Each structure stands twice: as structure tokens, then as C-alpha cells.
């Protein structure tokens, strides 16, 4: 393992039959970095996160999280990673609090569960009152908030977030960004996928633009802009890199 690298991919690739979803992805993310995977729909962002979680086996290359091979040691990876899927599927008949208790018990934190930390997160995301209501009655935004609380609940060292601010109102979205930056300041590596340029620009230390399964540019927002030629904004850079889509 290379020193001071939390997330590492080398030549990572994945095919689905004839279709190449991801090819030759090389990334090295240090602890405390907020890294944004940027790209149009179907570019390979979610595939990358699924490979890092070990949900998918790579067809080429390898991926490591904190030195653990994602393909062969996915259980150990899951233990140190907080993951938020794009569409959180929750048990409808549990309350938010029971869901937190269940998920953290599955992680072995049953007795050591720090409710103050959980409630603090819920408070900041503006849904502490709904914590005791059934998930069945939650809106999409509330489900996202609960999924965020679950991802942060066990104080993970790496956060993998798929479109974390989709469906959230601007106030909560800003709070989510602030939370992620605080986590990063504590040394947590955050990888988030998004197609929202605004989120990427204001949250991420570095960006990787994926188009058609290939990494087109990587670097700080300024560096990405430079890589696209002399363009004024990240949006223009994105349009140039993604072929005008």
C-alpha cells in the first residue's frame, strides 16, 4: 500500500457483456480529501462506487480501501466505510430510530451506540422529530437524510456517497456539504458521485470527470478547467470534456 492513500485504484475496469462501463481507472485519494466523481448519466460513477464497496467484481485492475482489497475483503471494507446508495431502500415498517439501531447493531455497535452523535446529525439535517416515525411515511428527502445518518453512524474512515444531495432542499443540501467538510477535516476520505456541478465545485477538493467509462480529467476544479482548455467555468469544462452533452 502506498503511504497516505485511503482509496486506491489501479487500472480498474468493469465490463457488462460487450459494454464497457469503466476502463483503466487510476486514482489515489489521501485521507481527508473530498473527491467528486463527475460525469453525465451512465458515465460509470455508480459502477466505480459499487466496485469500491465490493458489490461488483472488477474485470480488470484492482481497488483498495485503507489497504484492503475491495474484491476479496469486501466485508472488512464495509466495516470501515460509510455508504449511501442513490436510492436508499429501507425497511418500511421500522421507525428511523429503529433503523439506526438495527444497522449499527449489524455493525457491532449495539451497546456502544452513541445516540448523541446520531441525534446531532439528525438535528443538523433537520429531521430529529421524524426520527421516531415509520420509514413508510418518509418522503424521498427524509429517506436520504436517514441514509446519511446511517452512513455516518459508525464513524467511518471512508465515505462513499452516491448522489448525496439529490432530492434535498437547498438548506439541507448546504448542511450536508458542511457535514462532509467537517468529516474530511477529521481525516475521513469522502468520495461522492454527482452530476451537479455546483455541488462538485463547492464541496470537493479534487474532481474526476468520467465520460463513457474513462477518466477524462482529474484535479482541483481549477485544474479541471485548465485541462478542458481556456474555459471560464467548470460548467464549460464539463461540457467540453463530455463532448457537449
Amino acid at each position, binding site marked *: 500500500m502506498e503511504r497516505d492513500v485511503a482509496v486506491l485504484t489501479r487500472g480498474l475496469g468493469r465490463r457488462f457483456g460487450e459494454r464497457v462501463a469503466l476502463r483503466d481507472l487510476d486514482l489515489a485519494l489521501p485521507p481527508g480529501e473530498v473527491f467528486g466523481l463527475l460525469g453525465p448519466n451512465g458515465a460509470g460513477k455508480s459502477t466505480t462506487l459499487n466496485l469500491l464497496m465490493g458489490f461488483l467484481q472488477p474485470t480488470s485492475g484492482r481497488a483498495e480501501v485503507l489497504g484492503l482489497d475491495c474484491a476479496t475483503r469486501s*466485508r472488512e471494507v464495509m466495516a470501515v466505510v460509510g455508504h449511501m446508495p442513490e436510492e436508499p431502500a429501507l425497511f418500511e*415498517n421500522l421507525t428511523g430510530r429503529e433503523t439506526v439501531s438495527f444497522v449499527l447493531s449489524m455493525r457491532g455497535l449495539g451497546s456502544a451506540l452513541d445516540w448523541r452523535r446520531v441525534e446531532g446529525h439528525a438535528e443538523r439535517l433537520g429531521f430529529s422529530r421524524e426520527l421516531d416515525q*415509520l420509514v413508510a411515511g418518509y418522503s424521498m428527502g427524509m429517506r436520504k437524510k436517514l441514509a446519511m445518518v*446511517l452512513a455516518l453512524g459508525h464513524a467511518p474512515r471512508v465515505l462513499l456517497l452516491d448522489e448525496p444531495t439529490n432530492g434535498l432542499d437547498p438548506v439541507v443540501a448546504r448542511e450536508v456539504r458542511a457535514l462532509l467538510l467537517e468529516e474530511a477535516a477529521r481525516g475521513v476520505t469522502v468520495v461522492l458521485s454527482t452530476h451537479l456541478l455546483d455541488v462538485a465545485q463547492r464541496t470537493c477538493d479534487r474532481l474526476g470527470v468520467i465520460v463513457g467509462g474513462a477518466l477524462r480529467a482529474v484535479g482541483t476544479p481549477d485544474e479541471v478547467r485548465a485541462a478542458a482548455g481556456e474555459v471560464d467555468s467548470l460548467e464549460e469544462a464539463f461540457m467540453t470534456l463530455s463532448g457537449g452533452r
Partner: protein
Amino acid sequence: MTSAAGQVRAVVRALVAAGLNSLRRRQGAGAMVIFPMLVAVLAFELARFGGRGAAGVRRVLALTADRPEKGTWWVALWLSLLAVALAALKLSRSIPGRGSRRYFDTPMLRSLPVSPLARAVCELAAGHARAAGFVLVVWTPAVWGLARAHHGPWAALALTVAATLAVNSVTTLAAMAVDGGLSRRLDGRRLDLLRVASSVLGIGLVGLFTAGGPIGAGIAHHLRLGGRAPPSWTPLLPLWGFVEWTRFGARPAVVVAAIAPALVVGLASAAALARGLRRPGDVSLDAPSDTFGPRRWEPELSAWRVELRMLVRQAPWLPLGPLAFVAFFFALARLAPKATRADLPFLWLMGLTGWAFVVLATALSGATARRWRRVLWIPAAAGRDHRATVRAVAVAHTLLTAPLALGVLATLLYATQPGALFFLRMVPGLAAAIAVGHWALAAAVFLLIDPSPDRLSGLSVAAVFGVLTTAVPTAALLMLLSALPLGTWLPLLGLLALFAWSMERSAAERLRAIRDPDGDPVAPSRSWPALRGFGVATLAQLLVTQLAEAPLGLSQSAQLGLGYVAFAAVMIPLGWAGQRRHATQERWALPRALGVGVAAGLANFAVAMGYARLASRVWGEAAGPLTQGLAHAHGLWRPLLVLCAALLGPVAEELLFRGWLQPAFARDLPRRLAPFAPVLAAAVFAALHMSASWPMTFASGLLAGWLMQRSGRVETSAAMHVVSNALVVASALWS
């Protein structure tokens, strides 16, 4: 990282919490119905199979005293069938659309560090929790009885627990394996169809479980009457004990007492439902947003629970159902000579469980029908109308509820007509009647509530069908069919189909008007009012036959004469009014029409005589009530009967069928089917006569219809009918 045992404990805790939440907060009404029902049925079945030293199963085994192992094999066969049903139900619940999703394997849980062992155990635990009710009620009692027949109570308990856990696990694993294998090979649509098919298989087998006892009891009784021993497996059938208890003497009052409250509840529920859902301003023709896309399928379990909850909410009369059933059994106990006071608690229990079974099965089938609707809504949305959907819903419901309805019917028949040798002959006819009845009801539901398919939720199907298919058809079919000769069934079914078709058409017209409000207005159906007129005519006809046999103290011919007068008094004004609305183009002059009509009447008479001779020789058909009445008529009644039979009756019928119904059909049918309007009118005509010689009536109706179509004058067919009937009357007087 936590241990596998800790993770299993966490899952079990979550499942318990989820179950309690669903009871406490969300699905209280459904749970209030389901759980007492589960407990009651379980208690009943345990007592039947394993109570008092396993006397239940011993009785079964004793029936095969020469080969005791045979009884065991029958139990084993029954258990295997139920295990298949269980696996099918699990499979149907485990396919949420494209791609495989197991009970436990959601995206959120997949991201947790769960050990393979804990994952497998959790899958099984989740599967067990979902199927616990079904297994406990349907499977466990028979295992318990079997174990108690051979072992002491503790060993039997251990065996029962082990066998129950094993079958639940094996069926979960089987469903998961099939699900996983097929979801890789099939596309989403085929997978959906597979799920529907497996759901139908599973619920169908459960329906067999419910209906098996009554049907088997009927077969056994039929054999006993024929001097043969009933087969040894009949006591094994579910609800056999229930049938044994209800095997009483023929008391029509029992049937009336049983049916009246159920009828009231059924009609009141349907009315409440229609009131609640009929909001014309709230019509959306967009496909439901959750129709498309594989991830949006509701989990099956919550779907039928929600169905049940909404069923109770939308049909506030539903809680009266148990009362109706209790009244049924109370009436049985009071009126039946063999029942004693000690039987009452048992009968009450059976009443409640019987009703709960009906509600549960209906809610399940409602959820299933909704999926059918969704599967079929996609082509329906792209197409012109929703007739395919109507028929699909009807087919689904027939498959799901026919065994149940058959069982209830057979039980009542058996209880009230122990000597009914036509029982076996009735079963296929009843099945057909139920199928056509479902079609008619499906069309009626569409029309009653809303023709936009997204408003026809499983709820409406469940509520209306559930109550109507069990209470109303049970009552109506039992009353009607047991009183009628077998030959009248076919035209009756045809009639019901006509009714369904007419409803469907009206619903389609409404849908078209809503979909395209600025388009050409579609004239309302004329067949529908015509059929309503026909309904009145049917009642008039029933009045004739009932008056002839009612204990009024008059002679038979006097009663028949009165009946005919009443018939003519209703039919002629009705037919005249209807006929005037359908002025047709007259093609023939009146003399020509009358001449051809008379000639046709002579020919029809000759054929009818030949048919009557053939019928009496081949299948011993007796002469109709009119011929018999004329033969015994005296005094003034004789000319009155002659007048009615030879003139008033034929004229009234021709006005109604050829003057009104036939042109209405010709206008409403699609263009290429319009030439068949005389055939439909003749079918209705034959059905109205409710006579065993309906093939002849149908042929005569065809001839009259053809004459009407050729001449454009109702006088042609009226002349034919009058001449033909007059000659029949003359021949009856002569003989």
C-alpha cells in the same frame, strides 16, 4: 465487526419490531381481521388433526384399517401439495420486477459487513416471518396430527416444530433459487408474468384447501347414496368437519336465513364502495407512476395488507360480515334437527373463521389482480380501450376465487339437499357460471366506479368481488340453478355474458368520452336499456311460472292463466315502448310480410313437433307447463289461456325481442359483428323461456330474427310466432 450470532439477533429484533409496528401503527384494521382469524383457524385445525390424543388423524388412519400406511400417505400427499403452494407464494413475493431481490438483500443491507452465515440465516428468518401465518394455519396442524398419531405429545411437538421450520426453510431456499436462476434468464415482463402465475398457483392451491372439504364431502355423499363406500381420503380434506356438521335435512328456511344477511352485507358494501369512490372530478388517465420501471413494484406482503386495510375502510359494512356468518350458523343450529346446544360454540367459531377466510382470500386475490391489471395496463394504455383489462381481471379472479365459491356453494347444496344426485353434474356448470359471473362483475365494477384503469385498484376489485362473489352468487346461483333444469343453464350463461358485454361497452364509451372530450360525442348504448327491459321481462316470466305453482288454492290452469295475463300486461307495453324507439326501414309491404310470416310459422310448427317427439323419446323431456295447463284447463280459463298463449304472448315477445332488442344490438355491435344481432336476440329469447327445450326455442328465435331483418317489419316475425304458437295450442287441445 460483530459476530454472526449478534447479527442474527439484530435481524430478529428488527423483524419483531417491524411486525409490532405494522400491528400498532399502520395496518391495525387488517391485523384485527387477520390475527384473530389465524388463531381461530389454527385452534380449529389443531383440534381436528391432533386433539384428544390425535383422535383426528387416528380416525383418518382407521378408515384404511387394512392398510394403515395408506392414510399416512394421503396426509403426506396433502402436505406436499401445501408445500408447493408455499414455495409458489414465496416465489411470487420474491420477484420485485427485473432482477432478483431477496427478502433480506436490499441495497442498504448489502453495504453492511454481514457474514455469509448470518446472511443465510437472516434470509431464512425473513422468509419465515413472511410465511409464518400461512404455514401455521395450513401446514402445521396436519404435521402435528400425523406426529401425534405415532408419538407422545413431547416427541410430536419436537417433530412438528422441526418439520415446520424445515418446510419453511426449504421452500424459502427453493423460491430463492428459482428466483435467482430465472431472473438472470428472463426479461422483466416475463418475470412479472411468472410471478403472477406462481401467485395464482399458490393461491389456487390454498383455494383448493378451502374448497376441498365441501367438494370432497359432496362426492362422498354422492357415492354413499349410490350404495358405495366413500373414498378413504375424504376426511382428510380441509373443513371436512365443517361439512359433517352442516349435513342436515332439507330446510329452505335455513338457506334463506343464511343468505339474507350475507346478501344485505354484500349489497351494502358495494353501495358504500361505489359512493366512496365515485368522484368524477378526480379522473386521471395517466398510467400510475409506479407502473413502469422495475424497482417500483410494491412488496407483495404489504400490498395485500394494505388491500385488506383499505377494504375495511372503504366498505364500512364489512364488520357485519362475521355477524352474517354467525347468523348463518346460528340458524343452522336452531333449525337443523341434528345439532344440539353443545354445537353452538363450534358453529360460531366456524362462522367467524369462514368469513375471515373469505376476506383474506379476497384481499390476496385483490392484490394479485392489481398486478394483473398493471401487467396488462401497459398494452391497454397504448391501445384503444380497456376491455382486455376487464377480461384479464375476470380471468384472474375466476382462477383465484372459483374454488372458494365452489366450496361454499357445494357446502350449502350438500347441507340443504342431501339427496341431490345432480351434485356432480352441477360442478362444471357452476364453475362456468362463476367464470361468466366474474366477467360480468368485472365489467360492472369498471362501469360503476370509474372506467379509468388507474382508479380500478385491487381495492375495488377486492371489495366488490369479495363480497359479491361469495355472498351474492352463492345466494343467486344456488336459488336459481338448483330450481332449474340443466338445459336452461347454457342460455342463462349466455345471457350473463351478454350483460357483461353490454357493461363493457358502456364503460368503454365513458372512457373514450373522458379521453377525448372534444371528439365526436358517442351516443349511449341502446343495448343496455334493452337488456334492462329484458330483465323486467325475465321477472315477468318467472312470475308466470311461480304463479302456476304457488299455493293459492286455485286450479293450476287458473293460476297459469293469471300468470299469463300478468305477463302480457307487463310485456306488451314494455315491448311496444321499446320497439317504437327503434324504427327500422320497412322493406316489405304488410301483406307480403304477413304471408311470409304465416308460411314460416307453419314450417316452424312442423319442426317444433318433430323436436318435441325426439326430445321426449331420447331424453324423456316432459311437455311444458303451457301444454300441461291447457290439457287440464276448464271453463273460462281455457279460452283465456288460448288467447294468451296463441296471441298475446307471441306478440309481446316479438315486440320485445325482434322489435326492440335486435335493432339495439345491431346498432351497438361493431360493424362486422352487426349481422349477428339476430343470433344474440335469439339467445336472449331462448334464455327467457328457461325451458329444457331451449335449442328449439333458439332455432325459432333465429328464424324470427332473420325474417325481421329481411322484411324490416316486426309484423313478419309476429305472424310467424302467432301461427306457430296457435298450432301448438291447437295440437295440445286436440290431444
